[in-house]
Each structure stands twice: as C-alpha cells, then as structure tokens.
C-alpha cells in the first residue's frame, strides 16, 4: 500500500465521514432498522446478541421487534477483528502487560451497566443526536461535564 493511502486512513476526519455514512445507511441497506439510529452501539449490540442466544436456547418467540433479537449483530466482534488485522498489517500488535487490571475491570463493568440504562454508548449518543433525539443532547451535555471532571482528576494526579 502506498504511503499516501495509509495517511488518509489514519486521518480521524476520514474515519468520521466513512463511519457515519455507513452507520446511517445501515438502516435501509442492511435492514438494521427498529429501533431508530441503531447502526452502531457498542453496548446494545452485544446485549441483543445475548438476547438472541437466550431466545434460541429457550425456543421462545421474542416479544420485542428490535432487529438484534431476531438476528445476531456481530459489530463488537468485527471491531476487535478489524483492529487486529490493522495492527498486524502495521506491525503494531504486541501484548502489553498492565498493572491496574482490577480497576479496569470495574470501569468496564460500571460503564456497560450505565450504557445499557441510558441506551447508548458515546458513539451512539452522537448518532442519536444527529437523528434529532433531545435525550441524546442531554446525554452529551452530561458527557462533557463528566469529561471535565475526569480531566480535573487526571491533572490533580499528575501534579502529585
């Protein structure tokens, strides 16, 4: 691959344009329609995948009309696989050992539950806001306040 192409791929604006177009077109093209604005959600798609497994084991007809309950959505597995392919290609893949593993486990645990309660991960909040959802705007306001608090904590830690 030429160096110019790789440079375009590593531009966040390019990512934003391609990803947003794909996510919006997912509803008419890939039939990922009910609920609205469901092209990407990092927390809801695995939840629906789990629901799909449960309904297949129990042989129950799902009550909900959500698309993820009728067909398995493999988005998060795709993200991990795509990132793995990209890192192998750039020779960036390496196992890095970290120390604060228990804290990271807790972070993931709490963030998943909060995301399921407000029906959005940060990515889907932006997508829902683009669809004109006022709840998503409230969520983004909250997100900004939260990030501000987090930045204050990080700065305080760096000072000590």
């Amino acid at each position, binding site marked *: 691959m030429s160096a110019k192409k*790789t440079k375009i791929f590593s531009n*966040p*604006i390019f*990512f934003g*344009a*391609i990803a947003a177009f794909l*996510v919006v077109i997912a509803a008419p093209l*890939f*039939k990922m329609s009910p609920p609205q604005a469901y092209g990407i959600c*990092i*927390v809801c*798609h695995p939840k629906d995948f789990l629901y799909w497994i449960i309904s297949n084991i129990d042989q129950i007809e799902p009550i909900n009309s959500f698309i993820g309950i*009728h*067909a398995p*959505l*493999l988005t998060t597995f*795709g*993200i*991990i696989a*795509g*990132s*793995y*392919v*990209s*890192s192998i290609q*750039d020779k*960036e893949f390496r196992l*890095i050992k*970290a120390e604060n*593993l*228990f804290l990271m486990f807790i972070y*993931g*645990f709490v963030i*998943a*539950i909060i*995301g*399921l*309660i407000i029906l959005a*991960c*940060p990515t889907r*909040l*932006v997508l829902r*806001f*683009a*669809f004109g959802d*006022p*709840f998503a705007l*409230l969520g*983004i*306001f909250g*997100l*900004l*306040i*939260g*990030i501000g*608090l*987090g*930045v204050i*904590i*990080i700065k305080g830690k760096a000072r000590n």
Partner: protein
Amino acid sequence: MILPVVGSLFIGLIFGYLGQKSRICFIGGFRDFLLVRDKMLLQGLIAFFATSWITIQFFSLLSIIFKDFSFLNLKIVSYPGLFESLKSRFGIITFAGGIFLGLLSTLAGGCPLRQHVLAGQGRTDSMTYLGGFYTGIVLYIFILEKLIGRWI
C-alpha cells in the same frame, strides 16, 4: 435475516480497521482538547456528527421529493421537544448517566469503542476492561433489567 448479520459485521470491521489506524475515541476528542488543546480527535468526532446529519437530511429530502425513495425516510419515530425531555425521568437519568459515562471513560482512558480497538491491538488492560464490560451486560440482562426496568 442474513443482511443485518453481514451488515453489522462489515460495520464492525470498518470501525475496527479505520479506528485502529486513526486512533479515534469519542471521549478522547474532548479530553485531548481540554488537556493539551489537541484538536485532531475532536475533528473526527465533528466529522462523524456532520456527515451523519447531512446524510440523514439528504435521505429524508429524497424520500419527500420522490415517492420511490420512501424507504429512505429514516426518521420513523418522532422525538419530544427538548424541554419536555428535560422534565421527564428518562431525560434526567440520561443526563446523570452521561456524567458518569464521561467521568469513568476518561479515567479508563477511552470510550468503549477505543477499548475494543485497543483489545484487538493486544493491550491486556483493555482486554480486562472488556471482561468487566461483558460481565456487566450479562448481569444487567439476568438481574438488573428486572429490577430497574420497572421504573425506567
């Protein structure tokens, strides 16, 4: 029912591949801007929002003008106004949830999308994060949804 499966896998692959190359993070955009005034990731976030908004408006315009394109009308559900949503319980919960989501994601070092990308790249702390993430989802489905679902 094969279309949503293939489509979601394709979307995931594109998000993972380009996300690894561009280091995109939906938390990191604001965080980097507040910490070191770096606008790189924020540009990606704004591009994501702008492209999706323009695409939605373009599709709904097409579906209004041409009757053959009525399947392109993506806004099936209409939303309440901003002030009504502010007063409702779900609005308050979304606002409070957003604060915690932003705070904890900043401390964890990235939004859930970024953590998935880092896990695919071989970072063990992100893999542990994903362990907690999926444990949380399982716990929510089997226990919490029955408790919380009633009043949300």
